Protein backbone atom coordinates (compact mmCIF):
# COMPACT_ATOMS: atom_id res chain seq x y z
CA UNK A 1 0.00 0.00 0.00
CA UNK A 2 1.47 3.33 -0.99
CA UNK A 3 1.88 6.00 1.61
CA UNK A 4 0.57 9.54 1.46
CA UNK A 5 3.07 12.37 1.29
CA UNK A 6 2.06 15.29 3.51
CA UNK A 7 3.63 18.74 3.68
CA UNK A 8 2.57 20.81 6.64
CA UNK A 9 3.73 23.31 9.27
CA UNK A 10 4.22 22.25 12.88
CA UNK A 11 5.01 24.89 15.50
CA UNK A 12 6.07 27.22 12.71
CA UNK A 13 8.49 24.79 11.06
CA UNK A 14 7.88 23.21 7.65
CA UNK A 15 7.57 19.44 8.06
CA UNK A 16 6.87 16.63 5.66
CA UNK A 17 6.14 12.99 6.26
CA UNK A 18 4.70 9.83 4.76
CA UNK A 19 1.69 8.23 6.44
CA UNK A 20 -1.03 5.65 5.86
CA UNK A 21 -4.56 6.76 4.95
CA UNK A 22 -6.11 5.65 8.23
CA UNK A 23 -3.32 6.88 10.47
CA UNK A 24 -4.26 9.56 13.02
CA UNK A 25 -2.38 12.82 13.29
CA UNK A 26 -1.55 11.77 16.86
CA UNK A 27 0.18 8.60 15.63
CA UNK A 28 2.06 10.63 13.03
CA UNK A 29 3.24 13.12 15.66
CA UNK A 30 4.32 10.47 18.13
CA UNK A 31 5.51 7.57 16.01
CA UNK A 32 6.79 9.21 12.83
CA UNK A 33 7.96 12.61 14.04
CA UNK A 34 9.07 11.69 17.56
CA UNK A 35 6.92 14.43 19.08
CA UNK A 36 5.69 12.51 22.08
CA UNK A 37 4.36 15.47 24.06
CA UNK A 38 0.81 14.83 22.81
CA UNK A 39 -0.54 11.77 24.64
CA UNK A 40 -3.05 9.10 23.80
CA UNK A 41 -5.41 8.64 26.73
CA UNK A 42 -8.50 7.19 25.07
CA UNK A 43 -8.19 7.43 21.28
CA UNK A 44 -11.88 8.33 21.07
CA UNK A 45 -11.95 12.09 21.64
CA UNK A 46 -13.11 11.92 25.25
CA UNK A 47 -9.98 12.76 27.24
CA UNK A 48 -8.26 15.60 25.38
CA UNK A 49 -4.71 14.42 26.17
CA UNK A 50 -3.89 14.61 22.45
CA UNK A 51 -5.11 18.23 22.02
CA UNK A 52 -3.37 20.30 19.35
CA UNK A 53 -4.50 23.28 17.30
CA UNK A 54 -5.05 23.17 13.55
CA UNK A 55 -5.16 26.58 11.87
CA UNK A 56 -5.74 27.98 15.36
CA UNK A 57 -8.64 25.65 16.17
CA UNK A 58 -8.42 23.28 19.14
CA UNK A 59 -8.93 19.62 18.14
CA UNK A 60 -8.17 16.10 19.31
CA UNK A 61 -5.30 14.83 17.16
CA UNK A 62 -6.55 11.25 17.67
CA UNK A 63 -9.72 12.16 15.73
CA UNK A 64 -7.92 13.69 12.77
CA UNK A 65 -6.04 11.85 10.04
CA UNK A 66 -2.39 12.63 9.43
CA UNK A 67 -3.32 13.04 5.77
CA UNK A 68 -5.67 15.92 6.64
CA UNK A 69 -2.77 18.07 7.87
CA UNK A 70 -1.64 18.88 4.32
CA UNK A 71 -1.05 22.65 4.07
CA UNK A 72 -2.36 23.31 7.58
CA UNK A 73 -0.69 25.02 10.55
CA UNK A 74 -0.40 22.63 13.48
CA UNK A 75 0.62 23.72 16.97
CA UNK A 76 1.57 21.17 19.64
CA UNK A 77 2.80 21.31 23.22
CA UNK A 78 6.38 21.17 21.89
CA UNK A 79 5.94 24.70 20.57
CA UNK A 80 4.73 26.21 23.82
CA UNK A 81 7.93 27.09 25.69
CA UNK A 82 10.29 29.61 24.15
CA UNK A 83 13.55 27.63 24.30
CA UNK A 84 14.33 27.24 27.99
CA UNK A 85 11.75 29.86 28.99
CA UNK A 86 8.48 28.31 30.04
CA UNK A 87 5.15 29.78 28.95
CA UNK A 88 3.32 31.48 31.87
CA UNK A 89 0.77 28.65 31.81
CA UNK A 90 3.53 26.07 32.21
CA UNK A 91 5.09 28.05 35.05
CA UNK A 92 1.78 28.46 36.84
CA UNK A 93 1.05 24.75 36.53
CA UNK A 94 4.28 24.06 38.41
CA UNK A 95 3.65 26.79 40.99
CA UNK A 96 0.12 25.59 41.73
CA UNK A 97 1.08 21.90 41.56
CA UNK A 98 -1.61 21.52 38.91
CA UNK A 99 -0.37 18.12 37.85
CA UNK A 100 0.54 14.78 39.30
CA UNK A 101 1.13 12.00 36.78
CA UNK A 102 1.35 14.50 33.93
CA UNK A 103 -0.38 12.53 31.17
CA UNK A 104 -3.21 15.04 30.78
CA UNK A 105 -0.97 18.10 31.22
CA UNK A 106 0.19 18.73 27.63
CA UNK A 107 -3.39 18.58 26.35
CA UNK A 108 -4.66 20.84 29.11
CA UNK A 109 -1.90 23.37 28.47
CA UNK A 110 -2.64 23.46 24.74
CA UNK A 111 -6.37 23.79 25.43
CA UNK A 112 -5.85 26.51 28.04
CA UNK A 113 -3.57 28.47 25.72
CA UNK A 114 -6.24 28.31 23.04
CA UNK A 115 -8.80 29.65 25.56
CA UNK A 116 -6.57 32.57 26.62
CA UNK A 117 -5.88 33.51 23.01
CA UNK A 118 -9.62 34.00 22.51
CA UNK A 119 -10.52 35.21 25.95
CA UNK A 120 -7.71 36.74 28.03
CA UNK A 121 -10.02 37.19 31.03
CA UNK A 122 -12.20 34.08 31.33
CA UNK A 123 -14.40 33.43 34.36
CA UNK A 124 -13.91 30.26 36.34
CA UNK A 125 -17.08 28.87 34.79
CA UNK A 126 -15.93 29.66 31.24
CA UNK A 127 -12.61 28.02 31.98
CA UNK A 128 -14.25 24.89 33.37
CA UNK A 129 -16.54 24.57 30.34
CA UNK A 130 -13.71 25.20 27.88
CA UNK A 131 -11.63 22.46 29.54
CA UNK A 132 -14.53 20.00 29.95
CA UNK A 133 -13.01 17.85 27.21
CA UNK A 134 -9.75 17.44 29.09
CA UNK A 135 -9.87 14.72 31.70
CA UNK A 136 -7.51 14.53 34.68
CA UNK A 137 -7.75 11.58 37.02
CA UNK A 138 -5.25 12.86 39.60
CA UNK A 139 -5.83 16.45 40.61
CA UNK A 140 -9.56 16.98 40.98
CA UNK A 141 -9.24 19.93 38.55
CA UNK A 142 -9.21 22.67 41.18
CA UNK A 143 -5.50 23.40 40.98
CA UNK A 144 -5.64 23.27 37.19
CA UNK A 145 -8.36 25.90 37.09
CA UNK A 146 -6.49 28.09 39.59
CA UNK A 147 -3.29 27.81 37.57
CA UNK A 148 -5.05 28.79 34.35
CA UNK A 149 -6.78 31.79 35.95
CA UNK A 150 -3.55 32.89 37.61
CA UNK A 151 -1.63 32.61 34.33
CA UNK A 152 -4.36 34.61 32.60
CA UNK A 153 -4.02 37.33 35.23
CA UNK A 154 -0.24 37.45 34.86
CA UNK A 155 -0.50 37.57 31.08
CA UNK A 156 -3.05 40.40 31.24
CA UNK A 157 -0.82 42.42 33.55
CA UNK A 158 2.36 41.79 31.56
CA UNK A 159 3.59 45.00 29.90
Amino acid at each position, binding site marked *: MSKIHVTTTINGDPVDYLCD*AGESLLDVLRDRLGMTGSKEGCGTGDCGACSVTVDGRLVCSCLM*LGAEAEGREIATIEGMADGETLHPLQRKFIEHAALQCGICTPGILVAAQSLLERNPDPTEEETRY*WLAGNLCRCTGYDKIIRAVLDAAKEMREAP
Partner: protein
Amino acid sequence: MQYHAPTSIDDALRLLAAKDGNCQILAGGTDLLVRLHSETGDDPESILDIKRIDELRAITPEAGGWRIGAAVSGAEMGEHAGLVADWPGVVEAMNLIGSTQIQGRATLAGNLCNASPAADSVPAMVAAGAMARIAGPEGARDIPVAEVPTAPGRTSLGKAEFITSIHLPARPEGGGDAYLRFIPRSEMDIAVVGCGVALTLDEAGICNAARVSLGAVGPVVMLVEAGAEALIGTAVDDAALDALASVCSDAASPIDDKRGTVAFRTHVAGVLARRAASIARTRAGGAS
Protein backbone atom coordinates in the same frame (compact mmCIF):
# COMPACT_ATOMS: atom_id res chain seq x y z
CA MET B 1 -7.43 2.13 2.69
CA GLN B 2 -7.20 5.21 0.48
CA TYR B 3 -7.64 8.87 1.36
CA HIS B 4 -9.16 11.32 -1.12
CA ALA B 5 -9.62 15.05 -0.66
CA PRO B 6 -11.35 16.37 -3.79
CA THR B 7 -11.75 20.11 -4.20
CA SER B 8 -15.11 20.15 -5.99
CA ILE B 9 -18.51 18.52 -5.55
CA ASP B 10 -18.26 17.03 -9.04
CA ASP B 11 -14.93 15.38 -8.29
CA ALA B 12 -16.36 14.04 -5.03
CA LEU B 13 -19.37 12.60 -6.89
CA ARG B 14 -17.12 10.95 -9.49
CA LEU B 15 -15.07 9.33 -6.74
CA LEU B 16 -18.17 8.13 -4.90
CA ALA B 17 -19.61 6.64 -8.08
CA ALA B 18 -16.32 4.89 -8.89
CA LYS B 19 -16.03 3.36 -5.43
CA ASP B 20 -19.50 1.83 -5.59
CA GLY B 21 -20.41 2.13 -1.95
CA ASN B 22 -17.15 1.25 -0.30
CA CYS B 23 -16.27 4.83 0.43
CA GLN B 24 -17.02 6.81 3.58
CA ILE B 25 -17.50 10.56 3.66
CA LEU B 26 -15.23 12.27 6.19
CA ALA B 27 -16.45 15.60 7.56
CA GLY B 28 -15.26 16.33 11.12
CA GLY B 29 -14.42 12.69 11.71
CA THR B 30 -15.64 12.76 15.31
CA ASP B 31 -17.85 9.73 14.68
CA LEU B 32 -16.05 8.20 11.72
CA LEU B 33 -12.57 8.14 13.25
CA VAL B 34 -13.86 6.66 16.49
CA ARG B 35 -15.38 3.87 14.37
CA LEU B 36 -12.22 3.44 12.26
CA HIS B 37 -10.09 3.04 15.36
CA SER B 38 -12.47 0.62 17.04
CA GLU B 39 -10.93 -2.37 15.25
CA THR B 40 -14.22 -3.81 14.08
CA GLY B 41 -12.39 -4.91 10.96
CA ASP B 42 -14.95 -3.46 8.53
CA ASP B 43 -12.95 -0.43 7.47
CA PRO B 44 -14.04 1.24 4.23
CA GLU B 45 -11.85 0.93 1.15
CA SER B 46 -11.62 4.70 0.87
CA ILE B 47 -12.24 7.84 2.82
CA LEU B 48 -13.49 10.93 1.05
CA ASP B 49 -12.64 14.11 2.95
CA ILE B 50 -15.07 16.89 1.97
CA LYS B 51 -13.29 19.69 3.84
CA ARG B 52 -11.21 20.78 0.83
CA ILE B 53 -14.34 21.68 -1.14
CA ASP B 54 -14.48 25.46 -0.65
CA GLU B 55 -18.21 25.91 -1.15
CA LEU B 56 -18.92 23.45 1.69
CA ARG B 57 -16.95 25.56 4.15
CA ALA B 58 -19.19 28.63 4.26
CA ILE B 59 -22.33 29.89 6.00
CA THR B 60 -24.17 32.03 3.43
CA PRO B 61 -27.44 33.96 3.55
CA GLU B 62 -30.07 32.47 1.24
CA ALA B 63 -33.80 33.18 0.87
CA GLY B 64 -33.85 35.10 4.15
CA GLY B 65 -32.34 32.10 5.96
CA TRP B 66 -28.93 30.48 6.09
CA ARG B 67 -27.18 27.82 4.04
CA ILE B 68 -24.63 25.97 6.17
CA GLY B 69 -21.99 24.04 4.23
CA ALA B 70 -21.44 20.42 5.19
CA ALA B 71 -17.85 21.12 6.25
CA VAL B 72 -18.69 23.96 8.67
CA SER B 73 -17.81 23.08 12.27
CA GLY B 74 -19.94 23.64 15.36
CA ALA B 75 -17.44 26.22 16.60
CA GLU B 76 -17.84 28.21 13.37
CA MET B 77 -21.63 28.14 13.75
CA GLY B 78 -21.36 29.43 17.32
CA GLU B 79 -19.17 32.31 16.16
CA HIS B 80 -21.61 33.39 13.42
CA ALA B 81 -23.64 36.26 14.90
CA GLY B 82 -26.33 36.27 12.20
CA LEU B 83 -27.00 32.56 12.47
CA VAL B 84 -27.07 32.70 16.28
CA ALA B 85 -29.54 35.59 16.18
CA ASP B 86 -31.93 33.78 13.82
CA TRP B 87 -31.75 30.16 15.04
CA PRO B 88 -30.34 30.15 18.57
CA GLY B 89 -31.90 26.77 19.30
CA VAL B 90 -30.19 25.06 16.36
CA VAL B 91 -26.83 26.61 17.22
CA GLU B 92 -27.16 25.71 20.90
CA ALA B 93 -28.03 22.14 20.00
CA MET B 94 -24.98 21.89 17.75
CA ASN B 95 -22.77 23.51 20.39
CA LEU B 96 -23.88 20.97 23.01
CA ILE B 97 -22.04 18.28 21.06
CA GLY B 98 -18.92 17.11 22.88
CA SER B 99 -16.14 19.39 24.07
CA THR B 100 -14.31 22.42 22.69
CA GLN B 101 -12.08 19.97 20.80
CA ILE B 102 -15.07 18.16 19.26
CA GLN B 103 -16.66 21.52 18.35
CA GLY B 104 -13.56 22.38 16.34
CA ARG B 105 -14.40 19.54 13.95
CA ALA B 106 -17.97 18.24 14.29
CA THR B 107 -20.50 19.22 11.60
CA LEU B 108 -24.29 19.43 11.39
CA ALA B 109 -24.47 17.10 8.40
CA GLY B 110 -22.13 14.62 10.12
CA ASN B 111 -24.38 14.59 13.17
CA LEU B 112 -27.36 13.97 10.88
CA CYS B 113 -25.73 11.27 8.72
CA ASN B 114 -24.29 9.41 11.67
CA ALA B 115 -27.98 8.76 12.38
CA SER B 116 -27.75 8.30 16.12
CA PRO B 117 -31.22 8.45 17.71
CA ALA B 118 -29.68 10.80 20.31
CA ALA B 119 -27.99 13.21 17.86
CA ASP B 120 -28.41 16.62 19.45
CA SER B 121 -28.65 18.91 16.43
CA VAL B 122 -31.27 16.83 14.65
CA PRO B 123 -34.41 17.58 16.74
CA ALA B 124 -33.48 21.28 16.61
CA MET B 125 -33.10 21.17 12.81
CA VAL B 126 -36.38 19.28 12.44
CA ALA B 127 -38.20 21.85 14.60
CA ALA B 128 -36.66 24.64 12.51
CA GLY B 129 -37.87 23.01 9.28
CA ALA B 130 -34.34 22.58 7.94
CA MET B 131 -33.73 21.06 4.50
CA ALA B 132 -30.75 18.93 3.53
CA ARG B 133 -29.26 19.47 0.06
CA ILE B 134 -28.07 16.19 -1.38
CA ALA B 135 -25.69 15.95 -4.32
CA GLY B 136 -25.84 12.80 -6.42
CA PRO B 137 -25.33 11.40 -9.89
CA GLU B 138 -28.70 12.84 -10.99
CA GLY B 139 -27.97 16.32 -9.68
CA ALA B 140 -28.94 18.05 -6.46
CA ARG B 141 -32.16 17.54 -4.49
CA ASP B 142 -33.51 19.00 -1.26
CA ILE B 143 -35.25 16.90 1.36
CA PRO B 144 -36.48 17.66 4.89
CA VAL B 145 -33.85 16.80 7.47
CA ALA B 146 -36.29 14.40 9.17
CA GLU B 147 -36.22 12.20 6.04
CA VAL B 148 -32.46 11.59 6.22
CA PRO B 149 -32.16 9.15 9.16
CA THR B 150 -34.21 5.98 8.62
CA ALA B 151 -32.99 3.81 11.53
CA PRO B 152 -30.11 3.92 14.02
CA GLY B 153 -26.96 4.25 11.90
CA ARG B 154 -28.88 4.30 8.59
CA THR B 155 -29.85 7.07 6.20
CA SER B 156 -31.98 7.38 3.08
CA LEU B 157 -28.98 8.58 1.03
CA GLY B 158 -27.91 6.53 -1.97
CA LYS B 159 -24.39 5.09 -2.19
CA ALA B 160 -23.21 7.78 -4.57
CA GLU B 161 -24.86 10.68 -2.74
CA PHE B 162 -23.76 13.02 0.01
CA ILE B 163 -25.07 16.09 1.79
CA THR B 164 -23.48 19.32 0.63
CA SER B 165 -25.34 21.73 2.92
CA ILE B 166 -28.22 22.28 5.31
CA HIS B 167 -30.62 25.18 4.76
CA LEU B 168 -32.36 26.89 7.66
CA PRO B 169 -35.38 28.89 6.45
CA ALA B 170 -35.94 32.56 7.14
CA ARG B 171 -36.79 33.05 10.78
CA PRO B 172 -40.46 34.06 10.68
CA GLU B 173 -41.66 37.35 12.14
CA GLY B 174 -42.40 36.61 15.80
CA GLY B 175 -40.49 33.33 15.63
CA GLY B 176 -38.30 31.68 18.25
CA ASP B 177 -36.67 28.29 18.72
CA ALA B 178 -34.99 26.30 21.49
CA TYR B 179 -33.43 22.90 22.10
CA LEU B 180 -32.90 21.20 25.44
CA ARG B 181 -31.49 17.82 26.31
CA PHE B 182 -31.21 15.88 29.53
CA ILE B 183 -27.86 14.36 30.44
CA PRO B 184 -26.76 13.15 33.88
CA ARG B 185 -23.79 15.55 33.91
CA SER B 186 -23.36 19.14 32.77
CA GLU B 187 -21.03 18.38 29.81
CA MET B 188 -19.72 15.56 27.63
CA ASP B 189 -22.56 13.06 27.60
CA ILE B 190 -25.14 11.68 25.18
CA ALA B 191 -28.76 12.86 25.36
CA VAL B 192 -31.14 10.72 27.40
CA VAL B 193 -33.93 12.82 25.86
CA GLY B 194 -33.70 15.82 23.54
CA CYS B 195 -36.47 18.22 22.52
CA GLY B 196 -36.60 20.96 19.89
CA VAL B 197 -39.36 23.58 19.64
CA ALA B 198 -39.79 26.31 17.04
CA LEU B 199 -42.88 28.50 17.24
CA THR B 200 -44.30 31.77 15.96
CA LEU B 201 -46.44 34.27 17.87
CA ASP B 202 -48.77 36.79 16.22
CA GLU B 203 -48.99 40.42 17.34
CA ALA B 204 -51.43 39.49 20.10
CA GLY B 205 -48.99 36.88 21.43
CA ILE B 206 -51.01 33.92 20.14
CA CYS B 207 -49.09 31.02 18.67
CA ASN B 208 -49.94 30.58 14.99
CA ALA B 209 -47.32 28.02 13.98
CA ALA B 210 -45.25 25.48 15.88
CA ARG B 211 -43.03 22.46 15.34
CA VAL B 212 -42.07 20.17 18.19
CA SER B 213 -39.57 17.32 17.88
CA LEU B 214 -38.12 14.69 20.18
CA GLY B 215 -34.80 12.86 20.09
CA ALA B 216 -33.52 9.75 21.91
CA VAL B 217 -37.02 8.44 22.63
CA GLY B 218 -37.38 6.36 19.46
CA PRO B 219 -35.19 4.87 16.73
CA VAL B 220 -35.18 8.15 14.80
CA VAL B 221 -36.05 11.76 15.58
CA MET B 222 -39.81 12.36 15.73
CA LEU B 223 -41.90 15.35 14.77
CA VAL B 224 -44.74 15.47 17.31
CA GLU B 225 -47.75 16.83 15.42
CA ALA B 226 -49.90 16.76 18.55
CA GLY B 227 -47.30 18.96 20.22
CA ALA B 228 -47.80 21.64 17.59
CA GLU B 229 -51.59 21.32 17.97
CA ALA B 230 -51.27 21.81 21.74
CA LEU B 231 -49.55 25.16 21.19
CA ILE B 232 -51.27 26.66 18.14
CA GLY B 233 -54.11 29.03 19.04
CA THR B 234 -52.86 29.50 22.60
CA ALA B 235 -50.71 32.13 24.31
CA VAL B 236 -48.32 29.27 25.18
CA ASP B 237 -49.56 29.65 28.73
CA ASP B 238 -49.43 27.09 31.53
CA ALA B 239 -52.48 25.19 30.30
CA ALA B 240 -50.99 24.90 26.80
CA LEU B 241 -47.62 23.85 28.22
CA ASP B 242 -49.32 21.16 30.35
CA ALA B 243 -51.08 19.85 27.27
CA LEU B 244 -47.80 19.93 25.33
CA ALA B 245 -45.97 18.01 28.06
CA SER B 246 -48.64 15.37 28.14
CA VAL B 247 -48.73 14.76 24.35
CA CYS B 248 -44.92 14.66 24.19
CA SER B 249 -44.77 12.04 26.94
CA ASP B 250 -47.43 10.08 25.04
CA ALA B 251 -45.45 10.32 21.80
CA ALA B 252 -42.21 9.09 23.35
CA SER B 253 -41.50 5.40 22.75
CA PRO B 254 -38.05 5.00 24.29
CA ILE B 255 -35.99 1.96 25.22
CA ASP B 256 -34.52 1.11 28.62
CA ASP B 257 -30.76 1.40 28.65
CA LYS B 258 -27.94 2.32 30.99
CA ARG B 259 -28.66 6.02 30.55
CA GLY B 260 -32.36 6.02 31.34
CA THR B 261 -35.42 3.88 31.85
CA VAL B 262 -38.57 3.99 29.74
CA ALA B 263 -40.52 5.61 32.58
CA PHE B 264 -37.88 8.28 33.15
CA ARG B 265 -37.45 9.12 29.47
CA THR B 266 -41.20 9.30 28.94
CA HIS B 267 -41.58 11.73 31.81
CA VAL B 268 -38.56 13.84 30.83
CA ALA B 269 -39.81 14.17 27.24
CA GLY B 270 -42.75 16.17 28.61
CA VAL B 271 -40.65 18.20 31.02
CA LEU B 272 -38.17 19.22 28.33
CA ALA B 273 -40.92 20.06 25.84
CA ARG B 274 -42.52 22.39 28.37
CA ARG B 275 -39.22 24.12 29.15
CA ALA B 276 -38.07 24.35 25.53
CA ALA B 277 -41.44 25.81 24.50
CA SER B 278 -41.26 28.50 27.15
CA ILE B 279 -37.74 29.48 26.03
CA ALA B 280 -38.93 29.57 22.42
CA ARG B 281 -41.91 31.71 23.45
CA THR B 282 -39.60 34.20 25.18
CA ARG B 283 -37.34 34.31 22.13
CA ALA B 284 -40.38 34.89 19.95
CA GLY B 285 -41.05 38.01 21.98
CA GLY B 286 -43.81 36.57 24.18
CA ALA B 287 -44.17 36.79 27.95
CA SER B 288 -41.29 35.15 29.75
